[in-house]
């Protein structure tokens, strides 16, 4: 791994020591190889109207046009037209689309990884409905194959391959769960051979938010459900999904789901993590080639259902709150009502952010941006948007349902000495269960 700088002064990281041409070809082949009709339609449809810029937090907070979402795809758009599009032979014959150079890919690394959180707000702004976030994911796959990924993300990738999680070795998982149980005085189930519900985790719970591990245990125990954590398949955040490492994405997906099926579970509960929802709820079946005989739901959906069905009763807090919608959950996952229903059940009077639900601003740290320390300055710029909107609500609680959002927002608050605690919906529920 080496940190370098392009001729134009842009920092990039590079992995391995392959020749540049080999890297370039690997990136472009990976990008064009799996091209599906929907991606092609979207590659063909851009009007260059610039509307996507108005939706992107990184453009809006910096006014730097290079952060225009569609611009982040430029090398891959060029490669598409040269190698895949219906007129590709004509483009090549007439020399209308130059082959993408390694220098261009190096320069674009920061735009694809530092300046995109895969939040997909641009998709909602695009008059042609181009799903830019999905195309960025495809482009990240190309970058991963070229060994042009931020070192920090590549480190997490290697760690996940070795440990089964970017946060902790699988061998230590059961101990972490038991220690959390003892520390918080909550009975926990781990590695039970059979259970109806399998609970999964994201790195945030295994590092900064360990109370979440026992919060869900407390709720499940209260409901009298047959559940377990499992060392064989606990990691749901799926760094492969974020990095464009499709091989790892498939491996982690299969590991988690095969394990849940082996335990005989009918429901797999995903942690408070947005990308876990994208990777498991919407993409897992892609790797199986068929529907998976297992219900995969996000923690927030589980809480929403449990409250709605009356299986858990909550003590009313009786204060005011605002809610940050995690992008992968709300905008790209369609879960906007469940968290609001839970907040209501908690007796919290909700004041919505100016932009909320599907149209809310990203925390700024999604898509691996929060883990990519090189992106810190840009991430803090994006945070200012959220900070302004939260302050305008003048509420007592600032709640979200994603551990990565929570970490990003907490880091932002610390940076700006902003005296707001970012609270977890799960934690609020667990702390206010009626006896």
């Amino acid at each position: 791994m080496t940190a370098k700088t392009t001729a134009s002064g842009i920092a990039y990281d590079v992995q391995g020591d392959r020749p540049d041409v080999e890297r370039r070809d690997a990136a472009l082949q990976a990008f064009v190889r799996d091209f599906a009709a929907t991606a092609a339609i979207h590659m063909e449809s851009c009007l260059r109207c610039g509307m996507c810029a108005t939706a992107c937090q990184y453009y809006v907070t910096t006014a730097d046009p290079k952060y225009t979402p569609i611009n982040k795809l430029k090398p891959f758009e060029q490669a598409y037209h040269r190698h895949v599009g219906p007129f590709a032979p004509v483009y090549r014959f007439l020399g209308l689309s130059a082959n993408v150079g390694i220098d261009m890919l190096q320069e674009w690394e920061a735009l694809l990884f530092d300046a995109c959180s895969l939040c997909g707000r641009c998709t909602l702004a695009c008059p042609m409905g181009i799903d830019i976030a999905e195309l960025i994911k495809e482009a990240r796959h190309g970058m991963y194959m070229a060994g042009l990924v931020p070192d920090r993300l590549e480190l997490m990738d290697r760690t996940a391959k070795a440990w089964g999680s970017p946060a902790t070795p699988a061998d230590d998982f059961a101990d972490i769960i038991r220690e959390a149980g003892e520390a918080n005085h909550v009975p926990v189930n781990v590695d039970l051979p059979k259970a109806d519900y399998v609970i999964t985790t994201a790195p945030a719970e295994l590092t900064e938010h360990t109370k979440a591990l026992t919060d869900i245990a407390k709720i499940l125990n209260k409901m009298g459900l047959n559940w377990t954590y499992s060392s064989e398949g606990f990691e749901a955040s799926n760094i492969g999904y974020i990095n464009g490492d499709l091989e790892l994405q498939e491996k982690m997906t299969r590991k988690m789901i095969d394990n849940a099926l082996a335990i005989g579970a009918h429901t797999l509960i995903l942690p408070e993590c947005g990308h876990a929802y994208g990777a498991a709820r919407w993409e897992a079946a892609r790797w199986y080639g068929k529907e998976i005989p297992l219900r995969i739901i996000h923690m927030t959906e589980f809480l929403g259902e449990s409250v709605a069905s009356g299986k858990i009763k909550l003590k009313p807090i009786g204060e005011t709150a605002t809610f940050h919608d995690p992008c992968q959950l709300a905008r790209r996952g369609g879960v906007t009502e469940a968290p609001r229903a839970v907040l209501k059940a908690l007796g919290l009077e909700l004041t919505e952010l100016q932009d909320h639900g599907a149209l809310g601003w990203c925390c700024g740290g999604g898509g691996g941006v929060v883990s990519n320390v090189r992106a810190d300055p840009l991430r803090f710029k994006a945070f200012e948007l959220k900070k302004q909107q939260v302050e305008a609500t003048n509420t007592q609680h600032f709640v979200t349902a994603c551990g990565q959002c929570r970490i990003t927002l907490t880091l932002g608050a610390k940076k700006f000495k902003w005296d707001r605690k970012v609270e977890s919906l799960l934690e609020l529920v667990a702390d206010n269960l009626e006896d």
Partner: protein
Amino acid sequence: MDLLAFARGPALTFALAVFVLGSLWRLIGILALPPWRDLSPAREGAPPDWLAALQGIFGKMIPHKTFLKGGMFAIVNGYVFHIGLAICVFAFAPHILFLKSLFGLSWPGLPNGLVFAVGALTAGSLLAALAYRLTSPVLKLISRGDDYVSWLLTFLPVITGLAAASHIGARYETLLALHVLSICAFLIWFPFGKLMHAVLFVFSRGATGIRFRHRGAQL
């Protein structure tokens, strides 16, 4: 063969052939790629794909309020010249007669004076769009040659049409020939550049409509 006969005859025939065959080639080239099959279980209450596609196609006609702040000009001006072009093409009596000669269908037109006024407004709107493209830092960065060629080939039929309708600048027959030739150029370029969005929007919006509504997500 005079210029008008050439324009109406071989030029238009050739242009229509390129337009039809080129558009089909491009569409087939895209749609023949393997589909991305979404095997995840749909959100409860999600509409069937055909309805989700329609929701995408029509829902995207109205931008979200939150995007108006930064994109008001592009949105409003876009509406003005698209509606203006539609009126000029489909509501001008001579165009209706021409289309009837091609397809055998006709419909009532609008008064010529009104269409002329709309044409002038459309030309102004297109000029404003060009000025915006040339001055906006975002658009300057992302624009390609296609954007300027497509703009020119949209503007020329409007401006030559206005000249022909008002008999300004040359003999009517010459102006009409130039108008028809400009339309030929438009048709020839259509399959190769972004003018094709007039067709692609159905597929682009529809695909996202299906993906998002499957998840129960807002478009």
